[in-house]
């Protein structure tokens, strides 16, 4: 997982499984993206995700709020069914809709 710069935006491709340690990594990457002195939006590519923890969902929620506060946007691109499913189960389907 790493932050890539492409066509005026920052991109992160999520791996197949995002467990607890991986969520920590994701948080650090997103914090890094937020701290960068740029106005670029962040795109989280979630097409490959098959398994994710609640921790990962929390990180994405918190990061989305953070970017919003900085007048930037965190966008979830092409969420896999497992990804959407997790948000829905946790009662966060509307929150995910806002990020897509």
């Amino acid at each position, binding site marked *: 997982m790493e932050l890539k710069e492409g066509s005026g935006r920052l991109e992160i491709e999520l791996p197949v499984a995002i467990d607890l340690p991986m*969520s920590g990594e994701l948080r650090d990457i997103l914090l890094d993206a937020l701290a960068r002195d740029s106005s670029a939006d962040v795109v989280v590519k979630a097409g490959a995700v098959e398994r994710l923890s*609640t*921790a990962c969902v929390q990180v994405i929620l918190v990061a989305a709020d953070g970017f919003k506060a900085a007048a930037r946007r965190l966008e979830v691109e092409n969420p896999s069914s497992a990804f959407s499913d997790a948000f829905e189960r*946790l*009662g966060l389907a509307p929150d995910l809709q806002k990020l897509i």
Partner: protein
Amino acid sequence: MAEDQSYDLSRFKATYFEECAELLASAEETLSRLQDGEGSVEDLNAVFRCVHSIKGGGGAFAFEDLVHFAHVFETSMDALRSGRVQLTPHVAEILVRGNDVLGDFVRAAQEGETLPPDHGAEVKTQLAAILTGDADTPAPAARPAPVAAPAAVPSGFATWTIRLTPAPGLLRTGNDPLLMIRELSGLGEMKVAVDRSRLPLLADMDAQTAYLAWTFTLVTDKGRAAIEEVFEFVAGDSADVVIEQTGQPVEAEEGDGWGLFAPIPPTPDAPPAAAAPTHQGTVGHPAAPATSAKGQEAGAGGIHTSSIRVDLDRVDRLVNMVGELVITQAMLGQQASGFSIESHPELVQGLQELSHHTRELQESVMAIRAQPVKALFSRAPRLVRDLSTKLGKQARLVMSGEGTEVDKTVIEQLSDPLTHLIRNSLDHGIETPEERIAQGKPAEGTIHLAAEHRSGRVVIQVSDDGKGIDRKRVLEKAIEKGLVDRGAQMTDEQIDQLIFAPGFSTAAVVSDVSGRGVGMDVVRKNIQDVGGRVVVQSTPGQGSRFILSLPLTLAVMDGMLVAVGNERYVLPLTNIVESLRPTAQQARTLVNVGDVLTLRGDYIRLIRLYELFGIKNAITDTTRGLVVVVETEGGDRIGLLVDELLGQQQVVIKSLDSNYRPVEGISAATILGDGRVALILDVGALRIMGERLMSGAQLVAAASPQAAE
């Protein structure tokens, strides 16, 4: 580790319930025959066995209610089959009812429900009464009310509010609310409200801390216990869980629909208090049969299975037909090779799709027959434990790759050889603890059983860290038995191969474990029968390794079609390393060795296929032909001289052994697209044949066990 075990157990449970469903169905069928008065003693035995099997499995999983009832049932069946009690129509009826109740218990166990303690009590009493002969005296209530079906379902739905507030450390304990929510939503219809007020700023956030909290509204017919069970591991320490019942249970109305229809659960959207009356109107209405699915049918009908058993013959027929389809597809492809995509775009594209689909179909069909080698490996731990005790040795079994899937027929053929190899390792390989310590090894020996997929084949290895093959003894023994001529020069590898010779055993004392000399040659034969090969590698003092290499499937493989003179041969693609046209410098003839090919500093034995098979009109000049470098399972490389490569193709394997007779150097035959028969080359055997051809002057034919065939 713990996770693995629980996973395993759930798989065993699933198998058990599938078997239960079959057993109950078969018992029901037999019982109905008995009820019609057509039954025999064998039928009574059959029912007894069914009940006994269900009881046995239930005991293993500690389904106490189930076992208790099955025990009573079984005792009555035993009395009947032994003739102590006469089977009358009335008794038969009790048995049928008993089978229904048994089905209820199985279903309850499968769903993880608890039946009311008095469930089936009446039937149980009647079953017990069979023993004393009382059952046949008409009871005061001549026709007891049917008890089996309706009692199985707890009567009402209720609305529950559950608040889950995780402690910050919840996630770190390995518990994930996602899993609990998934489990909870399995209990009924559920709405989730999330409380995100505790979420911090990204900079202040610890990703492993739980911040979210939830309130669930659940409508379920399961009780509080089922809900509490979901949070069993977190409630208290890792999370604050509050469970409240907010809606009244909705009772099924007596008399409506004969209790066959379960009440419709109110949706969680409705205000809990209002839910009951508004929906009550529709509750007992016969127009709502959809919810009757669960747990209502008598006997085995309600126990769901996710797999079916199919007769192997049917699968074989399917495999054969797919094989024929592959041949037809190859034929069509060949016929159409003259058409260009420009002139017949649709035809060419259609054929490509056909080829694609054929391959997919074939893979799916093969997957039906595939089974994990776990079934094969599962006997090993016990074997090792028993044998090491018997032999006074200490051994540890390590297994890997149990999930590797192999064709069922291959698995069946492997069982004996594998058992023998493990015995062999323990008996001949692993030393006694004293010897091991004297040599600086740990007292406990290790036997490693491994399976893996390697380039289209399955490789199973049995290795040990014992003393390895005693080559001096093997050679002496071989000379003594007349397998090898005295004074014959043999390489280490050739000596190792001697242990596979028929009638060979070096164990000084014949033990009841191994050493009867009927082992390794049988091992090799069994493996060869399924198109496999066995190779042994041994390092004195460090152990031996037996490598079994087997085809994934016995039906189809990818091959390279090569031409030698007018003949066509198929080389398994998995064996081919590369092909090249050698220069004059590369191809040489060495004294006492024969033709070799120098390739990047290595010498590779060159085998002229035309010479081996006596083919005329073939290219004999190595610099004008092509050399295909192939690798055998043992890791040796040889070069095969052919005229040209004709192309890669999927071929259907037709056994030569069963249709003709075994031919050395040939593993099977196939039918090509143009209808010609081509032989599939056995690279390992070719190497041995080539060696014999070259060094025949030095080695007596019998010196190599392969040559003895």
